[in-house]
């Protein structure tokens, strides 16, 4: 299944797209990115130096969860349509959650009972 087949006529179908399908879920989910973006700047984790990542993991785009090899490439990414689209999406309403699904199904807010400890 899949794999290389360079003799095919249509260029798109020559190679398997399995990796693309798998790597889709290596990125951070929408809700995680949204939560990170809404945190104040001090709480965000500083970028650790990582040899395995491109550019030692120093050039990062939080919206798209991507690492870049240097500043120039990252800034180029910031100008791209894909990034702008993603940034706009993250500016909008919060992503769908299980709570939203429950409320839409006609359930009330979760009942956690009375608070036992006063803060």
């Amino acid at each position, binding site marked *: 299944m899949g794999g290389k087949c360079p003799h095919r006529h249509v260029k798109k179908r020559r190679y398997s797209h399995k990796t693309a399908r798998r790597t889709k879920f290596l990125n951070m989910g929408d809700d995680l990115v949204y939560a990170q973006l809404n945190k104040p700047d001090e709480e965000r984790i500083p970028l650790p130096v990582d040899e395995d990542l491109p550019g030692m993991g120093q050039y990062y785009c939080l919206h798209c969860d991507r690492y870049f090899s240097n500043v120039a490439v990252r800034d180029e990414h910031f100008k791209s349509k894909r990034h702008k689209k993603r940034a706009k999406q993250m500016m909008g309403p919060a992503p*769908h959650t*299980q709570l*939203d*699904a429950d409320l*839409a199904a006609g*359930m*009330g*807010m*979760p009942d*956690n009972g009375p608070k036992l400890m006063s803060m």
Partner: protein
Amino acid sequence: MRLEKCWFCSSTVYPGHGIQFVRNDAKIFRFCRSKCHKNFKMKRNPRKVKWTKAYRRVHGKDMTKDSTFEFERKRNRPERYDRNVKEDVLKAIPKIAKIRAIREETHHKKMKQGKHEKLRREAEKELKQGINMVKAPSVFQQDPSYTLPAIKVKVSQQKSVENHPMEE
């Protein structure tokens, strides 16, 4: 036993049905059937897919606020078993379901009515604003017959009371 709701379409997931996905941050996503699971894998937003409850809620197709929504809840605390309470609850469930169905029906009716009225008003406004596309404004000035005449209606008028005999 808990009956959970599907993450994508908000339908009830009964035991032995559907699939659940646990992300590596221990967040659980439950799906009632493969349709919902596949849609999730395609990274679709349930608020933009028309057949989900989330879409219907966001776009005002279904009731959003109602007192009947307060009964079914996720209760994160142990409930002490009481036979009398249980009996009452079992009696109340069909009644509440009936009330809810009636309210939903009235909501749908109201929604459709409102739409009709709105469309008519919009069409009227568009006609008024765009009449110049059909006839040039100079034509109206020359010939007042194209515009509707201003109707004067007297609201209350006392008529002299005369009783005519009925004619055959």
